[in-house]
């Protein structure tokens, strides 16, 4: 197969400002960013608690969150579909086949990534961080925030991972979004559709955007980490 011609067409499509193409890109970006923005704080807080606090069932809770990491995204999509479908408990909200349903799916997918990475980062933190903060007069909450700040590069990595997983997710987005042109069609679902239709230029164009976004986010993370991230 000739790859050069579809690639040339892909760049032409991107530069032409093709409406359908850029709608998919814009939808992917805002839904992923909003999902991560909403789920990050509670997930990081839960990860911190699971890493630091000892309580009955803590180990089971950690195992459960770790298990969620390996859940197939279509199963997550199925659960959300059943919850949001007309006959489901949240059917009256009319969220199925809207960007909001995709956002909920992305939040569910990113949640275990953020929690597990946070647990790992906090457990890997030097215990002297919390103790030093306490000895210098910080309360429990302030000392906890100081600990999170000291492991900020690990936490940032979890956010980037969660975002990367969300923006590239197909199964759940198709199930709860329906891949409706102009409404819920995003980058990965559009790639899947256009490729099956044989429109490789569209697929390549969207793939390029996805790779540029992934690269950009990771470059930003590396820049933020600077030398500190390499310690």
């Amino acid at each position: 197969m000739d790859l050069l011609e579809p690639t040339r067409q892909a760049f032409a499509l991107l530069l032409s400002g093709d409406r359908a193409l850029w709608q998919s890109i814009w939808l992917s970006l805002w839904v992923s960013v909003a999902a991560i923005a909403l789920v990050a704080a509670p997930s990081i807080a839960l990860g911190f608690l699971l890493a630091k606090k000892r309580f009955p069932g803590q180990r089971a809770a950690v195992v459960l969150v770790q298990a969620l990491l390996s859940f197939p995204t279509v199963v997550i999509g199925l659960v959300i579909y059943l919850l949001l479908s007309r006959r489901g408990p949240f059917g009256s909200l009319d969220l199925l086949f809207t960007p909001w349903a995709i956002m909920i799916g992305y939040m569910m997918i990113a949640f275990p990534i953020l929690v597990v990475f946070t647990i790992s980062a906090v457990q890997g933190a030097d215990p002297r961080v919390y103790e030093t903060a306490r000895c210098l007069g910080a309360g429990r909450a302030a000392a906890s925030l100081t600990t999170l700040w000291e492991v900020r590069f690990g936490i940032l990595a979890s956010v980037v991972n969660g975002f990367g997983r969300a923006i590239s997710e197909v199964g759940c987005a198709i199930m709860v979004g329906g891949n409706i042109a102009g409404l819920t069609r995003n980058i990965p679902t559009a790639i899947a559709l256009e490729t099956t239709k044989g429109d490789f230029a569209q697929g390549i164009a969207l793939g390029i955007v996805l790779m540029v976004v992934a690269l950009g986010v990771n470059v930003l993370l590396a820049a933020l980490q600077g030398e500190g991230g390499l310690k």
Partner: protein
Amino acid sequence: MSAPLLQLHGVRKAYGTRLLFAIGNLRIDAGGAYVLTGPNGSGKTTLMRMLAGLDADADGGLDFRGTPASFPMFPDRLRRAIVYVHQHPYLFHTSLRHNLEYGLKRRGMPPAERARRVEEAIAWAGLDARRATPPARLSGGEKQRAALARARALDPELLLLDEPTSSLDREGRAQTLALLAQLRSERRTVIVACHDQEIIDLPGFARLRLDEGRITLQSG
């Protein structure tokens, strides 16, 4: 005789059935300087951590300026009065200034006063040339001096220093010893856990020895 700053009574620390130490009575005077010696494993660090509120699992009590307290319910007032510096001090991965300011901010100190104390701390520790250096890049001796300056800037009523010269090179040790002598000359109440004979021999330091589960005041 100066007023007691801290008195321990009936303190027992055990790990399971193994008794680490039992301290019937110990008095630390305000303005006094003490070195705490004893063999490895005798409980020096544990005792220091208990006094800093970092180890709550102990029996017995303490009076601080005549007010009783217990280790399991270590009051915040004591956390602010007593500052502990780890054997290998931790400096936050931010900046030297932020490290020196951290505790001052927690005490609600106004920015102008904070800035004055930070500058004074940098000068006291001799770190003027290193103020822009990331804390992770400071040498062991510089880290120790920064941690001492950070603790001293808080003007604590009791300063607990755990093996401040261990793992320092000759130059780092000499500089840290000079700062310890200065703390003594400032009449700060300080307890230094150590094996270092040069610290033990510093003038004006009373000797506490923790051995075989008992603490004794050997001189002072």
